[in-house]
Protein backbone atom coordinates (compact mmCIF):
# COMPACT_ATOMS: atom_id res chain seq x y z
CA UNK A 1 0.00 0.00 0.00
CA UNK A 2 1.55 3.19 -1.04
CA UNK A 3 1.29 6.56 -2.67
CA UNK A 4 3.08 7.46 -5.87
CA UNK A 5 4.26 10.94 -6.78
CA UNK A 6 5.76 12.07 -10.06
CA UNK A 7 7.27 15.54 -10.15
CA UNK A 8 8.34 17.33 -13.31
CA UNK A 9 9.12 14.09 -15.09
CA UNK A 10 10.70 14.53 -18.56
CA UNK A 11 12.28 12.10 -20.96
CA UNK A 12 14.19 12.79 -24.13
CA UNK A 13 15.58 10.19 -26.54
CA UNK A 14 18.22 12.00 -28.57
CA UNK A 15 16.40 14.94 -30.12
CA UNK A 16 12.93 13.57 -29.48
CA UNK A 17 11.12 14.88 -26.45
CA UNK A 18 8.99 11.88 -25.50
CA UNK A 19 7.68 13.13 -22.19
CA UNK A 20 7.45 16.86 -21.68
CA UNK A 21 6.29 17.49 -18.13
CA UNK A 22 4.42 15.01 -16.01
CA UNK A 23 3.21 15.79 -12.51
CA UNK A 24 1.01 13.20 -10.98
CA UNK A 25 0.14 11.78 -7.62
CA UNK A 26 -1.70 8.59 -6.79
CA UNK A 27 -3.38 8.00 -3.46
CA UNK A 28 -3.04 4.72 -1.63
CA UNK A 29 -4.93 1.92 -3.39
CA UNK A 30 -5.87 4.04 -6.35
CA UNK A 31 -5.99 2.66 -9.89
CA UNK A 32 -4.95 5.28 -12.40
CA UNK A 33 -5.30 4.52 -16.07
CA UNK A 34 -3.02 6.23 -18.58
CA UNK A 35 -4.62 6.32 -21.98
CA UNK A 36 -3.57 7.76 -25.31
CA UNK A 37 -2.76 6.91 -28.91
CA UNK A 38 0.44 5.04 -29.67
CA UNK A 39 3.48 7.27 -29.41
CA UNK A 40 1.93 9.58 -26.84
CA UNK A 41 4.54 8.63 -24.24
CA UNK A 42 2.34 6.52 -22.00
CA UNK A 43 4.58 3.45 -22.14
CA UNK A 44 7.66 5.56 -21.52
CA UNK A 45 5.99 7.01 -18.45
CA UNK A 46 5.32 3.52 -17.14
CA UNK A 47 8.90 2.43 -17.83
CA UNK A 48 10.24 5.45 -15.97
CA UNK A 49 8.23 4.44 -12.94
CA UNK A 50 9.39 0.84 -13.32
CA UNK A 51 13.00 1.96 -13.50
CA UNK A 52 13.54 0.46 -16.95
CA UNK A 53 14.35 3.95 -18.23
CA UNK A 54 15.97 6.86 -16.42
CA UNK A 55 14.23 10.24 -16.64
CA UNK A 56 16.00 13.22 -18.19
CA UNK A 57 14.59 15.33 -15.37
CA UNK A 58 12.17 15.00 -12.48
CA UNK A 59 11.62 12.59 -9.62
CA UNK A 60 9.61 9.48 -8.84
CA UNK A 61 8.56 9.00 -5.23
CA UNK A 62 6.98 5.86 -3.91
CA UNK A 63 5.55 6.16 -0.44
CA UNK A 64 7.56 9.33 0.08
CA UNK A 65 10.89 7.69 -0.81
CA UNK A 66 12.76 8.98 -3.86
CA UNK A 67 13.29 5.98 -6.12
CA UNK A 68 14.25 7.83 -9.29
CA UNK A 69 17.74 6.33 -9.47
CA UNK A 70 17.01 2.90 -8.01
CA UNK A 71 17.35 -0.34 -9.94
CA UNK A 72 13.97 -1.80 -10.98
CA UNK A 73 14.34 -4.72 -8.62
CA UNK A 74 14.97 -2.45 -5.65
CA UNK A 75 11.78 -0.42 -6.13
CA UNK A 76 9.21 -2.84 -4.76
CA UNK A 77 7.21 -2.58 -7.95
CA UNK A 78 5.75 -5.42 -10.02
CA UNK A 79 4.79 -5.21 -13.66
CA UNK A 80 2.46 -7.11 -15.98
CA UNK A 81 3.75 -6.98 -19.55
CA UNK A 82 1.87 -6.75 -22.81
CA UNK A 83 3.25 -10.03 -24.13
CA UNK A 84 3.27 -11.52 -20.63
CA UNK A 85 7.07 -12.04 -20.78
CA UNK A 86 6.79 -15.44 -19.14
CA UNK A 87 10.04 -17.40 -18.91
CA UNK A 88 9.41 -20.05 -21.58
CA UNK A 89 11.52 -22.76 -19.95
CA UNK A 90 10.10 -22.39 -16.45
CA UNK A 91 6.91 -24.02 -15.16
CA UNK A 92 4.05 -21.81 -14.03
CA UNK A 93 5.20 -22.28 -10.44
CA UNK A 94 8.79 -21.33 -11.23
CA UNK A 95 7.68 -18.33 -13.23
CA UNK A 96 5.92 -16.98 -10.18
CA UNK A 97 8.62 -18.10 -7.73
CA UNK A 98 11.65 -16.78 -9.62
CA UNK A 99 11.62 -13.26 -8.24
CA UNK A 100 11.00 -14.53 -4.72
CA UNK A 101 13.93 -16.94 -4.95
CA UNK A 102 16.22 -14.15 -6.04
CA UNK A 103 15.03 -12.17 -3.05
CA UNK A 104 16.03 -15.10 -0.88
CA UNK A 105 12.63 -16.04 0.56
CA UNK A 106 12.41 -19.40 2.27
CA UNK A 107 11.03 -22.38 0.36
CA UNK A 108 7.99 -22.52 2.60
CA UNK A 109 7.24 -18.82 2.19
CA UNK A 110 7.54 -19.08 -1.58
CA UNK A 111 5.26 -22.11 -1.64
CA UNK A 112 2.67 -20.32 0.49
CA UNK A 113 2.66 -17.16 -1.60
CA UNK A 114 2.54 -18.95 -4.95
CA UNK A 115 -0.23 -21.25 -3.76
CA UNK A 116 -2.26 -18.32 -2.50
CA UNK A 117 -1.86 -16.39 -5.76
CA UNK A 118 -2.60 -19.50 -7.82
CA UNK A 119 -5.78 -20.13 -5.87
CA UNK A 120 -6.84 -16.53 -6.30
CA UNK A 121 -6.31 -16.74 -10.06
CA UNK A 122 -7.60 -20.28 -10.57
CA UNK A 123 -4.18 -21.55 -11.62
CA UNK A 124 -3.99 -24.31 -9.00
CA UNK A 125 -4.05 -27.17 -11.51
CA UNK A 126 -1.60 -25.59 -13.93
CA UNK A 127 1.41 -25.04 -11.70
CA UNK A 128 3.56 -27.69 -13.38
CA UNK A 129 2.78 -26.63 -16.94
CA UNK A 130 5.09 -24.70 -19.21
CA UNK A 131 3.87 -21.41 -20.70
CA UNK A 132 3.54 -22.88 -24.22
CA UNK A 133 0.98 -25.36 -22.84
CA UNK A 134 -1.29 -22.54 -21.66
CA UNK A 135 -3.99 -20.57 -23.43
CA UNK A 136 -3.69 -16.82 -23.83
CA UNK A 137 -5.97 -16.15 -20.89
CA UNK A 138 -4.04 -18.54 -18.65
CA UNK A 139 -0.74 -16.93 -19.58
CA UNK A 140 -2.25 -13.60 -18.69
CA UNK A 141 -3.16 -14.96 -15.28
CA UNK A 142 0.33 -16.31 -14.70
CA UNK A 143 1.74 -12.89 -15.54
CA UNK A 144 -0.63 -11.40 -12.96
CA UNK A 145 0.31 -14.09 -10.47
CA UNK A 146 3.96 -13.26 -10.88
CA UNK A 147 3.18 -9.68 -9.96
CA UNK A 148 0.90 -10.60 -7.06
CA UNK A 149 3.30 -12.97 -5.26
CA UNK A 150 5.79 -10.17 -4.98
CA UNK A 151 3.34 -8.27 -2.74
CA UNK A 152 4.66 -5.02 -4.15
CA UNK A 153 3.81 -1.46 -3.23
CA UNK A 154 2.81 -0.68 -6.79
CA UNK A 155 1.44 -2.60 -9.77
CA UNK A 156 2.24 -1.54 -13.29
CA UNK A 157 0.14 -2.82 -16.18
CA UNK A 158 1.44 -2.33 -19.71
CA UNK A 159 -1.51 -2.98 -22.05
CA UNK A 160 -1.99 -6.38 -20.46
CA UNK A 161 -5.14 -7.26 -22.36
CA UNK A 162 -4.22 -6.24 -25.88
CA UNK A 163 -3.25 -9.76 -26.94
CA UNK A 164 -6.53 -11.38 -25.90
CA UNK A 165 -9.61 -11.86 -28.03
CA UNK A 166 -12.54 -9.55 -27.44
CA UNK A 167 -14.57 -11.85 -25.21
CA UNK A 168 -11.68 -12.80 -22.97
CA UNK A 169 -10.65 -9.18 -22.73
CA UNK A 170 -14.00 -8.20 -21.21
CA UNK A 171 -13.75 -11.05 -18.73
CA UNK A 172 -10.14 -10.33 -17.70
CA UNK A 173 -10.89 -6.63 -17.43
CA UNK A 174 -13.42 -7.30 -14.75
CA UNK A 175 -11.10 -9.74 -13.04
CA UNK A 176 -8.21 -7.29 -12.91
CA UNK A 177 -10.46 -4.67 -11.40
CA UNK A 178 -11.77 -7.09 -8.79
CA UNK A 179 -8.29 -8.27 -7.83
CA UNK A 180 -6.89 -4.80 -7.62
CA UNK A 181 -9.74 -3.71 -5.35
CA UNK A 182 -9.37 -6.79 -3.18
CA UNK A 183 -5.58 -6.47 -2.80
CA UNK A 184 -5.83 -2.70 -2.48
CA UNK A 185 -2.52 -2.18 -4.27
CA UNK A 186 -1.88 1.17 -5.92
CA UNK A 187 -1.78 0.67 -9.69
CA UNK A 188 -0.82 2.37 -12.90
CA UNK A 189 -2.48 0.92 -15.96
CA UNK A 190 -1.50 1.84 -19.50
CA UNK A 191 -3.83 1.21 -22.40
CA UNK A 192 -4.82 2.63 -25.77
CA UNK A 193 -8.31 1.22 -25.42
CA UNK A 194 -10.74 3.85 -24.20
CA UNK A 195 -13.30 1.32 -23.02
CA UNK A 196 -10.68 -0.28 -20.78
CA UNK A 197 -9.71 3.15 -19.58
CA UNK A 198 -13.29 4.15 -18.75
CA UNK A 199 -14.16 0.92 -16.95
CA UNK A 200 -10.95 0.29 -15.00
CA UNK A 201 -9.72 3.61 -13.74
CA UNK A 202 -10.50 5.47 -10.56
CA UNK A 203 -8.98 8.31 -12.54
CA UNK A 204 -7.80 8.72 -16.11
CA UNK A 205 -4.75 10.45 -17.43
CA UNK A 206 -5.25 11.19 -21.12
CA UNK A 207 -1.90 11.78 -22.77
CA UNK A 208 -1.21 13.54 -26.05
CA UNK A 209 2.21 14.05 -27.60
CA UNK A 210 4.11 13.61 -24.36
CA UNK A 211 1.87 15.93 -22.35
CA UNK A 212 -0.96 15.24 -19.95
CA UNK A 213 -4.10 16.42 -21.79
CA UNK A 214 -6.47 15.75 -18.91
CA UNK A 215 -6.41 14.10 -15.52
CA UNK A 216 -9.84 13.43 -14.03
CA UNK A 217 -12.37 10.71 -13.26
CA UNK A 218 -13.65 8.79 -16.29
CA UNK A 219 -17.03 10.49 -16.22
CA UNK A 220 -15.49 13.95 -15.95
CA UNK A 221 -13.28 13.21 -18.91
CA UNK A 222 -16.30 12.05 -20.86
CA UNK A 223 -18.62 14.89 -19.86
CA UNK A 224 -16.15 17.75 -19.74
CA UNK A 225 -13.24 16.93 -22.03
CA UNK A 226 -10.44 19.44 -21.54
CA UNK A 227 -9.74 19.93 -25.22
CA UNK A 228 -10.76 18.74 -28.66
CA UNK A 229 -8.14 15.94 -28.57
CA UNK A 230 -9.57 14.40 -25.42
CA UNK A 231 -13.09 14.96 -26.73
CA UNK A 232 -12.35 13.06 -29.91
CA UNK A 233 -10.32 10.32 -28.21
CA UNK A 234 -12.81 9.35 -25.51
CA UNK A 235 -16.23 8.09 -26.63
CA UNK A 236 -17.15 5.94 -29.58
CA UNK A 237 -18.10 6.81 -32.20
CA UNK A 238 -16.05 9.97 -31.82
CA UNK A 239 -17.57 13.39 -31.12
CA UNK A 240 -18.65 15.53 -34.08
CA UNK A 241 -17.01 18.91 -34.44
CA UNK A 242 -18.69 21.89 -36.13
CA UNK A 243 -17.08 25.28 -36.76
CA UNK A 244 -18.96 28.26 -35.29
CA UNK A 245 -18.47 31.78 -33.99
CA UNK A 246 -19.42 33.41 -30.69
CA UNK A 247 -22.42 35.66 -30.95
CA UNK A 248 -25.15 37.44 -28.91
CA UNK A 249 -22.50 38.76 -26.44
CA UNK A 250 -21.34 35.27 -25.58
CA UNK A 251 -24.77 33.76 -25.01
CA UNK A 252 -24.88 31.74 -28.22
CA UNK A 253 -22.86 30.32 -31.08
CA UNK A 254 -23.67 30.67 -34.75
CA UNK A 255 -22.75 27.62 -36.75
CA UNK A 256 -21.02 28.20 -40.07
CA UNK A 257 -23.73 25.91 -41.39
CA UNK A 258 -26.41 28.45 -40.47
CA UNK A 259 -28.35 28.06 -37.24
CA UNK A 260 -27.57 29.79 -33.96
CA UNK A 261 -27.61 27.78 -30.76
CA UNK A 262 -28.02 29.32 -27.34
CA UNK A 263 -25.85 27.97 -24.54
CA UNK A 264 -27.99 26.36 -21.85
CA UNK A 265 -25.27 26.47 -19.18
CA UNK A 266 -24.46 30.18 -19.32
CA UNK A 267 -22.65 32.65 -21.56
CA UNK A 268 -18.95 32.41 -22.60
CA UNK A 269 -16.53 35.27 -22.33
CA UNK A 270 -14.88 36.55 -25.48
CA UNK A 271 -15.22 38.99 -28.33
CA UNK A 272 -18.15 38.83 -30.70
CA UNK A 273 -17.23 36.65 -33.69
CA UNK A 274 -14.57 34.64 -31.84
CA UNK A 275 -13.78 31.39 -33.65
CA UNK A 276 -15.18 28.34 -31.84
CA UNK A 277 -15.41 24.62 -32.36
CA UNK A 278 -18.64 23.09 -31.16
CA UNK A 279 -18.57 19.45 -30.14
CA UNK A 280 -21.59 17.22 -30.05
CA UNK A 281 -21.57 13.46 -29.52
CA UNK A 282 -23.38 11.30 -32.09
CA UNK A 283 -25.97 10.24 -29.52
CA UNK A 284 -26.82 13.88 -28.75
CA UNK A 285 -28.17 14.64 -32.20
CA UNK A 286 -31.88 14.30 -32.77
CA UNK A 287 -33.26 13.19 -36.10
CA UNK A 288 -36.35 15.04 -37.25
CA UNK A 289 -35.45 18.45 -35.83
CA UNK A 290 -34.99 20.77 -38.82
CA UNK A 291 -31.97 22.64 -37.43
CA UNK A 292 -29.45 21.13 -39.86
CA UNK A 293 -29.79 19.25 -43.10
CA UNK A 294 -27.44 16.31 -43.29
CA UNK A 295 -26.59 14.49 -46.49
CA UNK A 296 -26.53 10.73 -45.75
CA UNK A 297 -23.49 8.77 -47.02
CA UNK A 298 -23.76 5.44 -45.26
CA UNK A 299 -25.99 3.68 -42.77
CA UNK A 300 -24.57 1.11 -40.36
CA UNK A 301 -27.20 -0.89 -38.48
CA UNK A 302 -25.75 -2.29 -35.24
CA UNK A 303 -28.95 -3.99 -34.10
CA UNK A 304 -30.18 -2.05 -31.12
CA UNK A 305 -29.00 1.19 -32.65
CA UNK A 306 -27.96 2.60 -36.00
CA UNK A 307 -25.11 4.84 -37.05
CA UNK A 308 -25.76 7.35 -39.81
CA UNK A 309 -22.66 8.69 -41.53
CA UNK A 310 -23.21 11.91 -43.42
CA UNK A 311 -22.06 15.47 -43.96
CA UNK A 312 -23.47 19.00 -44.06
CA UNK A 313 -24.29 20.16 -47.59
CA UNK A 314 -21.75 23.03 -47.56
CA UNK A 315 -18.55 22.44 -49.51
CA UNK A 316 -15.69 20.99 -47.45
CA UNK A 317 -17.88 20.32 -44.43
CA UNK A 318 -16.54 17.72 -41.98
CA UNK A 319 -18.18 14.29 -41.82
CA UNK A 320 -20.82 13.74 -39.15
CA UNK A 321 -22.00 10.65 -37.34
CA UNK A 322 -25.43 10.38 -35.80
CA UNK A 323 -26.45 7.58 -33.50
CA UNK A 324 -30.15 6.76 -33.36
CA UNK A 325 -32.02 4.08 -31.48
CA UNK A 326 -33.54 1.37 -33.62
CA UNK A 327 -33.71 1.80 -37.38
CA UNK A 328 -32.70 4.80 -39.38
CA UNK A 329 -35.04 6.63 -41.75
CA UNK A 330 -34.32 5.63 -45.33
CA UNK A 331 -33.68 8.88 -47.13
CA UNK A 332 -30.81 10.68 -48.80
CA UNK A 333 -30.99 13.72 -46.56
CA UNK A 334 -32.28 14.05 -43.03
CA UNK A 335 -33.11 16.88 -40.69
CA UNK A 336 -30.98 16.83 -37.55
CA UNK A 337 -31.18 18.88 -34.39
CA UNK A 338 -28.51 19.53 -31.75
CA UNK A 339 -29.37 18.90 -28.10
CA UNK A 340 -28.06 22.17 -26.74
CA UNK A 341 -27.65 20.91 -23.16
CA UNK A 342 -25.00 18.45 -24.42
CA UNK A 343 -23.01 20.94 -26.41
CA UNK A 344 -19.25 21.20 -25.83
CA UNK A 345 -17.64 24.53 -26.58
CA UNK A 346 -13.96 24.82 -27.53
CA UNK A 347 -11.72 27.69 -28.50
CA UNK A 348 -11.00 26.93 -32.15
CA UNK A 349 -7.49 28.38 -32.03
CA UNK A 350 -6.20 26.61 -28.90
CA UNK A 351 -8.53 23.64 -28.94
CA UNK A 352 -9.17 24.16 -25.21
CA UNK A 353 -12.57 23.77 -23.60
CA UNK A 354 -14.46 27.01 -23.02
CA UNK A 355 -16.45 26.70 -19.83
CA UNK A 356 -19.33 29.04 -18.97
CA UNK A 357 -18.02 32.44 -17.86
CA UNK A 358 -14.56 31.68 -19.18
Amino acid at each position, binding site marked *: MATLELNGLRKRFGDTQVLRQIDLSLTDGEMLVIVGASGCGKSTLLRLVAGLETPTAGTVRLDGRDITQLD*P*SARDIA*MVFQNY*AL*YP*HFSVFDNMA*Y*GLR*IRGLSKAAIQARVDAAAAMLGLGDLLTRKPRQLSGGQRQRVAMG*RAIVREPKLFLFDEPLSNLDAKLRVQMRAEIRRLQRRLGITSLYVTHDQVEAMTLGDRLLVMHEGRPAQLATPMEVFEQPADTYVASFIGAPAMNFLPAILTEHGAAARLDAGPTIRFTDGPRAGPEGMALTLGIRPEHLTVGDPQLRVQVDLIEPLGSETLIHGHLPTAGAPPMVIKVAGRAPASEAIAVGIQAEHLHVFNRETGMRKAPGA
Partner: protein
Amino acid sequence: MNRKPDYLTHAVLALGVVLFALPVWLVLAGSTQESEAITRGDLSLIPHLSGLPRYWQVLTEGTRGAEPVWHMLAISSAMALCIALGKITISILSAYAVVFFRFPLRKLAFWSIFVTLMLPVEVRIIPTYSVMAQFGLINTFTGLWVPLIASATATLLFRQVFVAIPDELVEAARMDGAGPLRFLRDIVIPVSGANIAALFVILFVYGWNQYLWPLLVATDPSLDTIVIGLVKMIGIDSDTDWAAVMATAVMALLPPVAVVVLMQRWFVAGLTEGEK
Protein backbone atom coordinates in the same frame (compact mmCIF):
# COMPACT_ATOMS: atom_id res chain seq x y z
CA MET B 1 -3.72 -36.83 -53.92
CA ASN B 2 -2.85 -40.19 -55.35
CA ARG B 3 -1.93 -42.84 -52.83
CA LYS B 4 -0.01 -45.01 -55.28
CA PRO B 5 3.60 -45.46 -54.18
CA ASP B 6 5.82 -42.90 -55.88
CA TYR B 7 8.32 -45.29 -57.49
CA LEU B 8 10.41 -42.57 -59.12
CA THR B 9 10.94 -40.80 -55.80
CA HIS B 10 11.89 -44.01 -54.05
CA ALA B 11 14.29 -44.89 -56.84
CA VAL B 12 16.07 -41.53 -56.79
CA LEU B 13 16.33 -41.42 -53.00
CA ALA B 14 17.49 -45.02 -52.77
CA LEU B 15 20.16 -44.29 -55.36
CA GLY B 16 21.34 -41.38 -53.26
CA VAL B 17 21.40 -43.52 -50.13
CA VAL B 18 23.47 -46.16 -51.95
CA LEU B 19 25.85 -43.54 -53.29
CA PHE B 20 26.67 -42.53 -49.73
CA ALA B 21 26.40 -45.92 -48.09
CA LEU B 22 28.37 -48.00 -50.58
CA PRO B 23 31.86 -46.79 -49.66
CA VAL B 24 31.10 -47.17 -45.99
CA TRP B 25 29.72 -50.64 -46.50
CA LEU B 26 32.81 -51.60 -48.49
CA VAL B 27 35.02 -50.38 -45.69
CA LEU B 28 32.92 -52.13 -43.08
CA ALA B 29 33.00 -55.43 -45.01
CA GLY B 30 36.66 -55.11 -45.86
CA SER B 31 37.66 -54.41 -42.28
CA THR B 32 36.73 -57.98 -41.37
CA GLN B 33 38.65 -59.65 -44.19
CA GLU B 34 42.26 -60.47 -44.88
CA SER B 35 44.48 -57.71 -46.21
CA GLU B 36 45.92 -60.07 -48.79
CA ALA B 37 42.46 -60.72 -50.18
CA ILE B 38 41.80 -57.00 -50.46
CA THR B 39 45.09 -56.36 -52.23
CA ARG B 40 44.26 -59.17 -54.65
CA GLY B 41 40.90 -57.53 -55.24
CA ASP B 42 38.93 -60.35 -53.73
CA LEU B 43 36.93 -58.04 -51.50
CA SER B 44 33.68 -59.69 -50.56
CA LEU B 45 30.63 -57.50 -49.92
CA ILE B 46 29.66 -59.67 -46.99
CA PRO B 47 31.48 -59.03 -43.71
CA HIS B 48 33.18 -62.01 -42.13
CA LEU B 49 32.35 -62.33 -38.45
CA SER B 50 35.68 -64.05 -37.95
CA GLY B 51 37.42 -60.76 -38.69
CA LEU B 52 35.89 -58.86 -35.79
CA PRO B 53 38.84 -59.42 -33.42
CA ARG B 54 40.86 -57.19 -35.72
CA TYR B 55 39.03 -54.21 -34.24
CA TRP B 56 40.30 -55.05 -30.80
CA GLN B 57 43.81 -55.53 -32.12
CA VAL B 58 43.84 -52.23 -34.04
CA LEU B 59 42.29 -50.42 -31.12
CA THR B 60 44.85 -51.55 -28.58
CA GLU B 61 48.00 -52.05 -30.64
CA GLY B 62 47.57 -50.13 -33.84
CA THR B 63 49.42 -50.97 -37.02
CA ARG B 64 52.99 -50.61 -38.08
CA GLY B 65 54.28 -47.06 -37.68
CA ALA B 66 51.06 -45.74 -36.13
CA GLU B 67 49.84 -45.05 -32.65
CA PRO B 68 47.23 -47.44 -31.24
CA VAL B 69 43.81 -46.38 -32.46
CA TRP B 70 42.45 -45.84 -28.94
CA HIS B 71 45.07 -43.16 -28.40
CA MET B 72 44.27 -41.37 -31.63
CA LEU B 73 40.55 -41.60 -30.85
CA ALA B 74 41.24 -40.10 -27.43
CA ILE B 75 43.17 -37.20 -28.96
CA SER B 76 40.43 -36.60 -31.53
CA SER B 77 37.68 -36.77 -28.91
CA ALA B 78 39.51 -34.43 -26.57
CA MET B 79 40.26 -32.03 -29.39
CA ALA B 80 36.68 -32.06 -30.73
CA LEU B 81 35.19 -31.62 -27.25
CA CYS B 82 37.58 -28.82 -26.31
CA ILE B 83 36.88 -27.01 -29.58
CA ALA B 84 33.11 -27.42 -29.29
CA LEU B 85 32.85 -26.48 -25.61
CA GLY B 86 35.54 -23.81 -25.73
CA LYS B 87 34.07 -22.11 -28.75
CA ILE B 88 30.54 -22.26 -27.37
CA THR B 89 31.72 -20.77 -24.09
CA ILE B 90 33.69 -17.81 -25.42
CA SER B 91 31.04 -17.18 -28.09
CA ILE B 92 28.18 -17.09 -25.60
CA LEU B 93 30.11 -14.68 -23.42
CA SER B 94 31.12 -12.32 -26.20
CA ALA B 95 27.73 -12.41 -27.91
CA TYR B 96 26.05 -11.77 -24.56
CA ALA B 97 28.27 -8.77 -23.93
CA VAL B 98 27.65 -7.33 -27.38
CA VAL B 99 23.87 -7.80 -27.25
CA PHE B 100 22.98 -7.03 -23.65
CA PHE B 101 25.34 -4.20 -22.77
CA ARG B 102 26.49 -0.86 -24.06
CA PHE B 103 30.19 -0.32 -23.54
CA PRO B 104 32.89 1.75 -25.19
CA LEU B 105 34.03 0.40 -28.57
CA ARG B 106 31.25 -2.18 -28.58
CA LYS B 107 30.73 -1.95 -32.33
CA LEU B 108 34.46 -2.11 -32.96
CA ALA B 109 34.70 -5.25 -30.83
CA PHE B 110 31.83 -6.83 -32.72
CA TRP B 111 33.18 -5.98 -36.16
CA SER B 112 36.70 -7.09 -35.35
CA ILE B 113 35.29 -10.48 -34.41
CA PHE B 114 32.94 -10.52 -37.37
CA VAL B 115 35.66 -9.89 -39.95
CA THR B 116 37.48 -13.08 -38.96
CA LEU B 117 34.59 -14.96 -40.54
CA MET B 118 36.40 -14.36 -43.78
CA LEU B 119 39.75 -15.85 -42.81
CA PRO B 120 39.84 -19.66 -42.69
CA VAL B 121 42.94 -21.28 -41.20
CA GLU B 122 44.00 -22.48 -44.62
CA VAL B 123 44.79 -19.01 -45.93
CA ARG B 124 47.15 -18.10 -43.11
CA ILE B 125 49.04 -21.30 -42.61
CA ILE B 126 52.61 -20.03 -42.43
CA PRO B 127 52.18 -16.89 -40.34
CA THR B 128 49.92 -18.67 -37.87
CA TYR B 129 52.58 -21.33 -37.54
CA SER B 130 55.19 -18.73 -36.73
CA VAL B 131 52.92 -17.09 -34.14
CA MET B 132 52.27 -20.50 -32.60
CA ALA B 133 56.01 -21.09 -32.45
CA GLN B 134 56.46 -17.81 -30.59
CA PHE B 135 53.90 -18.93 -28.03
CA GLY B 136 55.65 -22.28 -27.69
CA LEU B 137 52.49 -24.06 -28.80
CA ILE B 138 53.99 -26.31 -31.45
CA ASN B 139 53.52 -29.98 -30.58
CA THR B 140 51.27 -29.26 -27.61
CA PHE B 141 47.68 -30.30 -27.10
CA THR B 142 46.76 -26.68 -26.34
CA GLY B 143 48.13 -25.71 -29.74
CA LEU B 144 45.79 -28.22 -31.36
CA TRP B 145 42.59 -26.63 -30.18
CA VAL B 146 42.94 -23.13 -28.70
CA PRO B 147 43.60 -21.27 -31.98
CA LEU B 148 40.60 -22.98 -33.58
CA ILE B 149 38.04 -21.65 -31.11
CA ALA B 150 38.57 -18.02 -32.04
CA SER B 151 36.45 -17.86 -35.17
CA ALA B 152 33.33 -15.78 -35.47
CA THR B 153 30.70 -18.25 -36.69
CA ALA B 154 29.42 -19.24 -33.26
CA THR B 155 29.50 -15.67 -31.98
CA LEU B 156 27.35 -14.55 -34.89
CA LEU B 157 24.87 -17.33 -34.34
CA PHE B 158 24.51 -16.57 -30.65
CA ARG B 159 24.20 -12.88 -31.38
CA GLN B 160 21.29 -13.66 -33.67
CA VAL B 161 19.67 -15.88 -31.05
CA PHE B 162 20.14 -13.34 -28.27
CA VAL B 163 18.82 -10.44 -30.31
CA ALA B 164 15.63 -12.43 -30.80
CA ILE B 165 15.04 -12.71 -27.03
CA PRO B 166 12.13 -10.31 -26.39
CA ASP B 167 12.94 -7.09 -24.55
CA GLU B 168 10.03 -7.75 -22.22
CA LEU B 169 11.67 -10.94 -21.00
CA VAL B 170 14.76 -8.98 -20.04
CA GLU B 171 12.59 -6.40 -18.33
CA ALA B 172 10.62 -9.01 -16.44
CA ALA B 173 13.87 -10.54 -15.21
CA ARG B 174 15.16 -7.15 -14.14
CA MET B 175 11.95 -6.45 -12.24
CA ASP B 176 12.36 -9.86 -10.63
CA GLY B 177 15.79 -8.77 -9.50
CA ALA B 178 18.01 -10.86 -11.77
CA GLY B 179 21.42 -9.31 -12.43
CA PRO B 180 23.30 -9.77 -15.71
CA LEU B 181 25.13 -12.98 -14.79
CA ARG B 182 22.08 -14.49 -13.18
CA PHE B 183 20.00 -13.61 -16.23
CA LEU B 184 22.61 -15.28 -18.44
CA ARG B 185 22.60 -18.45 -16.37
CA ASP B 186 18.89 -18.73 -15.51
CA ILE B 187 17.24 -17.42 -18.66
CA VAL B 188 19.51 -16.88 -21.67
CA ILE B 189 21.38 -20.17 -21.66
CA PRO B 190 18.33 -22.41 -21.01
CA VAL B 191 16.27 -20.51 -23.60
CA SER B 192 19.04 -21.01 -26.19
CA GLY B 193 19.39 -24.70 -25.38
CA ALA B 194 18.39 -25.94 -28.82
CA ASN B 195 20.84 -23.60 -30.53
CA ILE B 196 23.63 -24.64 -28.20
CA ALA B 197 22.91 -28.29 -28.99
CA ALA B 198 22.97 -27.60 -32.72
CA LEU B 199 26.19 -25.69 -32.46
CA PHE B 200 27.72 -28.44 -30.39
CA VAL B 201 27.11 -30.91 -33.23
CA ILE B 202 28.50 -28.57 -35.87
CA LEU B 203 31.59 -27.75 -33.83
CA PHE B 204 32.23 -31.28 -32.67
CA VAL B 205 32.25 -32.42 -36.29
CA TYR B 206 34.38 -29.42 -37.25
CA GLY B 207 36.90 -30.27 -34.52
CA TRP B 208 36.94 -33.98 -35.25
CA ASN B 209 37.50 -33.40 -38.95
CA GLN B 210 40.44 -31.01 -38.71
CA TYR B 211 43.31 -32.08 -40.93
CA LEU B 212 45.56 -29.28 -42.11
CA TRP B 213 45.85 -27.67 -38.68
CA PRO B 214 47.03 -30.73 -36.72
CA LEU B 215 49.23 -31.68 -39.64
CA LEU B 216 50.93 -28.32 -39.24
CA VAL B 217 51.27 -27.77 -35.49
CA ALA B 218 51.63 -31.33 -34.21
CA THR B 219 54.27 -33.42 -35.88
CA ASP B 220 54.73 -35.48 -32.73
CA PRO B 221 52.99 -38.85 -33.41
CA SER B 222 51.67 -38.96 -29.86
CA LEU B 223 49.42 -36.03 -30.84
CA ASP B 224 48.11 -37.69 -34.01
CA THR B 225 44.37 -37.40 -34.40
CA ILE B 226 42.50 -40.28 -35.91
CA VAL B 227 42.09 -38.46 -39.24
CA ILE B 228 45.81 -37.68 -39.43
CA GLY B 229 46.68 -41.24 -38.42
CA LEU B 230 44.40 -42.72 -41.04
CA VAL B 231 45.83 -40.66 -43.88
CA LYS B 232 49.32 -41.58 -42.70
CA MET B 233 48.36 -45.26 -42.88
CA ILE B 234 47.30 -45.11 -46.51
CA GLY B 235 50.36 -43.04 -47.28
CA ILE B 236 52.58 -46.07 -46.98
CA ASP B 237 52.18 -47.01 -50.61
CA SER B 238 53.26 -50.60 -50.80
CA ASP B 239 52.35 -53.22 -48.31
CA THR B 240 49.46 -51.33 -46.73
CA ASP B 241 47.53 -53.36 -44.17
CA TRP B 242 44.21 -52.56 -45.82
CA ALA B 243 42.01 -54.40 -43.39
CA ALA B 244 43.52 -52.47 -40.50
CA VAL B 245 43.07 -49.22 -42.39
CA MET B 246 39.43 -50.09 -42.95
CA ALA B 247 38.82 -50.98 -39.33
CA THR B 248 40.44 -47.71 -38.31
CA ALA B 249 38.30 -45.83 -40.83
CA VAL B 250 35.13 -47.32 -39.37
CA MET B 251 36.13 -46.25 -35.88
CA ALA B 252 37.11 -42.80 -37.10
CA LEU B 253 33.70 -42.36 -38.72
CA LEU B 254 31.61 -43.61 -35.88
CA PRO B 255 31.76 -40.78 -33.29
CA PRO B 256 30.96 -37.78 -35.53
CA VAL B 257 28.32 -39.72 -37.48
CA ALA B 258 26.72 -40.84 -34.23
CA VAL B 259 26.63 -37.27 -32.95
CA VAL B 260 25.03 -36.01 -36.17
CA VAL B 261 22.45 -38.78 -36.41
CA LEU B 262 21.49 -38.76 -32.74
CA MET B 263 21.17 -35.00 -32.62
CA GLN B 264 19.81 -34.62 -36.14
CA ARG B 265 16.71 -32.70 -35.13
CA TRP B 266 18.52 -29.82 -33.40
CA PHE B 267 21.43 -29.91 -35.73
CA VAL B 268 19.47 -29.44 -38.96
CA ALA B 269 17.37 -26.63 -37.52
CA GLY B 270 20.38 -24.93 -35.98
CA LEU B 271 22.49 -25.19 -39.09
CA THR B 272 19.98 -23.78 -41.54
CA GLU B 273 18.84 -21.09 -39.12
CA GLY B 274 22.31 -19.99 -38.19
CA GLU B 275 24.07 -19.87 -41.52
CA LYS B 276 21.52 -17.70 -43.25
